C-alpha cells in the first residue's frame, strides 16, 4: 500500500500530492481526512512526482498536512453480478438500500472500452414504449440513444418512468398486418440519477416498486446533496453494469440517465478547478468527447444477444436548444424527444413536441415484421398533417378563422384531435403499437380523402375501412 501525507494544495475537489512514486494516470485513490471520513478519487494528471487527484466525495474537512492519500494501483472498478437486479446503489456503486454487499462475478473498469465500429450491429429492432408520441412517430430502437430534451418544471421524470416501466421488445411477426406480442423476461432497466432531488429519486423508486418493475431494475443514485464530483463516475457505473447485463447475461438493457445537465456541470466544476481553458459557456473543450464516451456505450454487438439502449434526460437551461449540453448531445445521439412547455400548460401529457422531435433510426425499426406494414406511411401522414394544422392555426391567429379554406379548417381540427387523443395519454396507460396505429387511423378519417397523399392506397383500403367498421 502506498500511502502519502504529502498533500500540498487543495483546490475545490482537487488535491495536489507531492513526492509520490509509481503513480499512474487514472489510478484509483482513497483519501482519509483528519476527521476519519473517507473519499474515493482518481488521478487526473501525474507530473514526475506530483499527482493531481480528484476527490469524488469532495474535500470538505480535509487539510493538506493531515490527509492520508492511498494509491490503490487499479482504476475505478465496479464489481458486477446478476444479483444487482432489484438493488439500489449510490453514485459510486455501493449499496444504498439495506441489502447485503454484492458478491461480484467479475470486476470491470468503469471506463469501458470503445466498441470496434466493425463489430457493431446496426440497431433495427423496435422497442414498444407504450407511449404513442414515441412509438407512433419517433420510435425507439434497440441499441439507440434517444435523449429527452426537457426543461425545469416539465414532466420528464414521469415520462422516463413510464418508458422504463412499459418498455418491451416485440416478437417478430410473420404477418405484415399484425405486430408481434411482447417478449417476456429479457428486459432490464439500469437507472442512473445524477444530482436530482431526493423527491425525484423517491418518485422513481416508488414507481418501480409499485409496478414490481424494480425486480428487473438496477438503480444508481447520486442525489442533489451527494458530492457533485461523484456524478462524473455515476453514469459510467451504470453503463458498466448495463454492459455486463447486456453482453454477459444476454439481456436487453434500457439505460436511463438523468439529469445529464448536472453531470456536465460537475465536469465544468472540475475543469474550472484545474484552470483549464474553457470552451463555450465555461464548459471544458473536451465536453463533446466526454459525452461521447458515455453515449457511445449504447449499441449492439454482432454475435451477442443483448443490447444497450439509452434514454438520457437533460433539462435545457432556459429551454434553449442551442445551449452546449443539448447541442453536443444532439450531435452524438440518434435524435431527440423534445418536451414542450405550451403543450404542458394546456394539460397534454406527455407534452412531446412532435415536430422538433426526431428518431434517426426509425426507418430501420418499423414496418412489416417489426411493427406493421402501414406504420411508416401513417407516421408520415400524421406528421405532415399535424405540421400543416399548426401552420393553419398560426394563420388563423393573424387572419381570423374565417379566412381559412375548408381544407385548412379540417387540418386545424385534426391538429387539435391529434394533441388530445394521440399525443395525450395517461401516465399509466400502456398502449400497444397496434392501439397507437388505430388511433392514428381514426384521426386520418378527419382529413379530406384527397389530402391523404402519403399513405399507399392499399393500406388506406385495408386499415381505414376496418377502423370505421370497428367504430361503427
Amino acid at each position, binding site marked *: 500500500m502506498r500511502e502519502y501525507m504529502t498533500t500540498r494544495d487543495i483546490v475545490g475537489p482537487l488535491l495536489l500530492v507531492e513526492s509520490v512514486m509509481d503513480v499512474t494516470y487514472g489510478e484509483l485513490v482513497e483519501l482519509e481526512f483528519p476527521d476519519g471520513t473517507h473519499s474515493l478519487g482518481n488521478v487526473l*494528471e501525474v507530473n514526475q512526482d506530483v499527482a493531481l487527484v480528484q476527490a469524488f466525495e469532495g474535500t470538505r474537512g480535509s487539510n493538506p498536512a493531515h490527509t492520508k492519500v492511498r494509491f490503490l494501483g487499479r482504476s475505478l472498478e465496479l464489481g458486477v453480478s446478476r444479483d444487482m437486479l432489484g438493488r439500489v446503489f449510490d453514485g459510486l456503486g455501493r449499496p444504498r438500500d439495506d441489502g447485503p454487499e454484492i458478491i461480484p462475478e467479475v470486476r470491470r473498469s468503469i471506463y469501458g472500452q470503445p466498441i*470496434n465500429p466493425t463489430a457493431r450491429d446496426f440497431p433495427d429492432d423496435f422497442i414498444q414504449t407504450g407511449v404513442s408520441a414515441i412509438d407512433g412517430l419517433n420510435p425507439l430502437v434497440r441499441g439507440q440513444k434517444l435523449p429527452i430534451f426537457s426543461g425545469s418544471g416539465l414532466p420528464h421524470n414521469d415520462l422516463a418512468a413510464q418508458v422504463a416501466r412499459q418498455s418491451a421488445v416485440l416478437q417478430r411477426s410473420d404477418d405484415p398486418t399484425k405486430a408481434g406480442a411482447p417478449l417476456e423476461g429479457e428486459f432490464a432497466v439500469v437507472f442512473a440519477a445524477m444530482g436530482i432531488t431526493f423527491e425525484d429519486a423517491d418518485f422513481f423508486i416508488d414507481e418501480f416498486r409499485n409496478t414490481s418493475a424494480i425486480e428487473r431494475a438496477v438503480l444508481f443514485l447520486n442525489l442533489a446533496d451527494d458530492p457533485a464530483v461523484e456524478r462524473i463516475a455515476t453514469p459510467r457505473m451504470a453503463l458498466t453494469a448495463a454492459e455486463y447485463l447486456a453482453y454477459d447475461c444476454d439481456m436487453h438493457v434500457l439505460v436511463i440517465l438523468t439529469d445529464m445537465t448536472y453531470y456536465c456541470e460537475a465536469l465544468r466544476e472540475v475543469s474550472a478547478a484545474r484552470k483549464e481553458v474553457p470552451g463555450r459557456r465555461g464548459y471544458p473543450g473536451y465536453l463533446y468527447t466526454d459525452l461521447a464516451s458515455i453515449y457511445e456505450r449504447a449499441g449492439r454487438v454482432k454475435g451477442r444477444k443483448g443490447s444497450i439502449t439509452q434514454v438520457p434526460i437533460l433539462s435545457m437551461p432556459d429551454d434553449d436548444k442551442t445551449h452546449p449540453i443539448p447541442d453536443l448531445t444532439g450531435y452524438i445521439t*440518434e435524435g431527440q424527444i423534445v418536451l414542450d412547455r405550451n403543450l404542458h400548460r394546456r394539460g397534454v401529457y406527455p407534452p412531446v413536441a412532435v415536430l422538433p422531435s426526431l428518431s434517426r433510426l426509425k426507418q430501420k425499426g418499423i414496418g412489416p415484421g417489426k411493427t406493421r406494414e402501414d406504420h411508416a406511411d401513417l407516421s408520415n401522414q400524421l406528421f405532415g398533417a399535424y405540421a400543416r394544422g399548426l401552420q393553419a392555426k398560426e394563420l388563423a391567429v393573424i387572419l381570423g378563422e374565417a379566412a381559412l379554406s375548408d381544407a385548412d379548417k379540417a387540418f386545424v381540427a385534426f391538429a387539435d384531435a391529434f394533441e388530445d387523443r394521440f399525443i395525450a395519454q395517461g401516465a399509466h396507460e400502456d398502449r400497444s403499437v397496434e392501439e397507437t396505429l388505430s388511433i392514428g387511423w381514426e384521426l386520418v378519417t378527419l382529413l379530406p380523402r384527397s389530402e391523404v397523399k402519403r399513405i399507399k392506397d392499399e393500406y388506406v383500403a385495408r386499415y381505414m375501412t376496418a377502423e370505421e367498421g370497428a367504430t361503427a
Partner: protein
Amino acid sequence: MEQGRILKVAGPLVVAEGLVDSKMFDLVRVGEEGLMGEIIEMRGDRASIQVYEETEGLGPGDPVEATGAPLSVELGPGMLEAVYDGVQRPLDKLEEQAGAFLTRGISAPGLDRERRWAFTPVVEPGMRVQGGDILGTVQENEVIEHRILVPPHVEGTIADIAAGSYTVTEPVGHLTTDAGERVELIMMQVWPVRTPRPYKKKISVAEPLTTGTRVIDTFFPLTKGGVACIPGPFGAGKTVTQHQIAKWSNAEVVIFIGCGERGNEMTDVLMEFPELEDPYSGEPLLKRTVLVANTSNMPVAAREASVYTGITMAEYFRDMGYNVVLQADSTSRWAEAMREISGRLEEMPGDEGFPAYLGTKLAAFYERAGKVECACGADRTGSVSVVGSVSPPGGDLSEPVVQNTLRVVKVFWALQDKLAYERHFPAIDWLTSYSLYLDKVTPWWSEHVSPEFRARRDRCMAILQRENELAEIVRLVGLEALSAEEQILMETAKSIREDFLQQNAFRDDDQFSSYREQDLLLETILLFHEKAIEAHTKGASLRDLFAAPVRERIARAKYLTEERLAEFEEIRSDIETQLVGDGFDDDETLVYAGGER
C-alpha cells in the same frame, strides 16, 4: 533506437525526457504496451507526445521508444474495401485479435502482408523511369485497377521486372539509379501523412463533379479537384447528402473519413456500402471505397490524425490518375481534437479555446485537394475533391471552425434544419448556399449539357430570389396584393422548389438526375412560366392556368427515368396547348383588375 522516460501524463498527452535525437512529428512507442504516439512539441530534451490510445495506467518512469520515423501510412494494393481507424489500423483485423471491443496496445499493419496480388508490368528492363511512373498494374478488384508507381523522388533505369504473384513487400523488380545504386521495387509505399505527396503542377479546375443531386449539380456545382463545405445542424440530413455524393459522384475512388462521429452511423455506412450498388460498375460501392472510422469515443489524438491519413490515401490514388472524392465528417470534431490537445499543451488559446493555428491547419488540409498533373514522366492528371462537413454548435455559423473553413472552400451547401422540418430534402438552402466554380464550369456546361443551361439556371435563381422578397409581402398582406405576373412567379418558384430542388434520396427513380434531365426540367418549368404569363396577358385566368392538367405532369417529370426523357417533348407540347389565352374580350380580363382570387 533511443529510449526515453515518461515524466508526465495528462489525458492523451504524455511528456517524456531523453528523446534528444527525435524530430517533431516522429512516431514513438509509449509504455510497456508500446502505444502509438506522435511528438508534437519539443522543449530541450523534453518531448510532448500525443498518444493514439487510452493512456490510463501510464505513469512517470514508463519507457518511451523512438522510432525515428514520422507517422506514416502504407499505400498499396489492399486499401480498397478496408476499414481503418485514424492511424490506419485495419479494424477488422483488430476485431479478429481482440474481439468486439478495442483493447489497448493491439496493432496490425495497414496492408495485409500475406495476401498475394497478380502483378503485370508495363515497363521493361532498360527503360528509364522517374518517381510517379507506372511500373505495372494489379487488378485490385472488379472495379479498380491499382497502378503500381515508382516511389516519389526515385529515378533510374529498370534492371529487371517480372509479372507474377507478389505480396506487397516482395520485390517485383529492381532499378539502378544514376549513381549505380540498386533499388528494390516493391508494391507498398510508405508515406508520412503530414507531408503532401508531390505533383508536377496544379491545374485550374474546370469539369464539374456530377453528383446527380439537382440542387448541387445545377445550382451549386463542385468541380473535380474542388473543395466544398456542408454545415449540418443536427437533423438536417447531412449524412444522407454525404451518402448521395459517395454513391453517385463520378469519381473513381471515394475516401470516407468518419472523424469523431456516431458509432451507429459508421455501422450504417459499413453495412450499407457493401450492399449499395455502384451505379457506374454495378459492383458494391465498397469496392471503390476506403473507410477511415474514428468514432467519437475512440481516442481523440487518433481523431486528429485521421483526416491526414485519409487525404494521404486520396493523394496516392490521385497520383495513379484517378479522380478521388474525399469526405471528412466532421472537420469540427477534428478541430475539437486539436483544441483538446492544444489545451493539454497549455497553449495560449484563440477564439473559443481553439488553437491560434486552427485557420492555418484547416487551410493546409483543404489545399491538399485539387486537380493536378501527376508527378511522372508521362501526361497524366488526377484530382482530389474534398467535401468537409462542419457541425457548428447551436447552428451558429459565426463560430471559428466554420469561419476558417469558409475562407478556403469555394462551395458552401447550407443545410438548414428549418427546411428539413418542412420535409424539403435535400435541405440545402438555395438562398445562402454558393459555388464559386460557376463561371469555371460554364464552358463545360455549354459544351456537354446545353448552351442555354447556365442562362436557365440563372433565371431560376432569380425567380427564387424574387420569391423570397415577395414572400415578405405575402406574409403581411396576403397573396392578393401581388400583381398577376408576380403571382405566376410565386407559382413558378414553388414549382422550382417542389419539382426540381426537392429530391428523394430513397426513391429509385429520383435519387439520381442526369445533367440532361436537369436541363430538361429547368427548360420545362421555365417554359410553363413564360407561357403562363403570355396566356394571362391574352386573357386566361390565373385559376385556370394554375389548374392546368400539365402541372401534374411537370410535378412527376423528375421521376422520369433516363430512357423516358423523350416524354419531356410531350409535356412541352401539353404546355403549349393547355396554356392559351381565351382572347382579350373575355370576361376574365375584366375581373383581373379586382384580383383573380
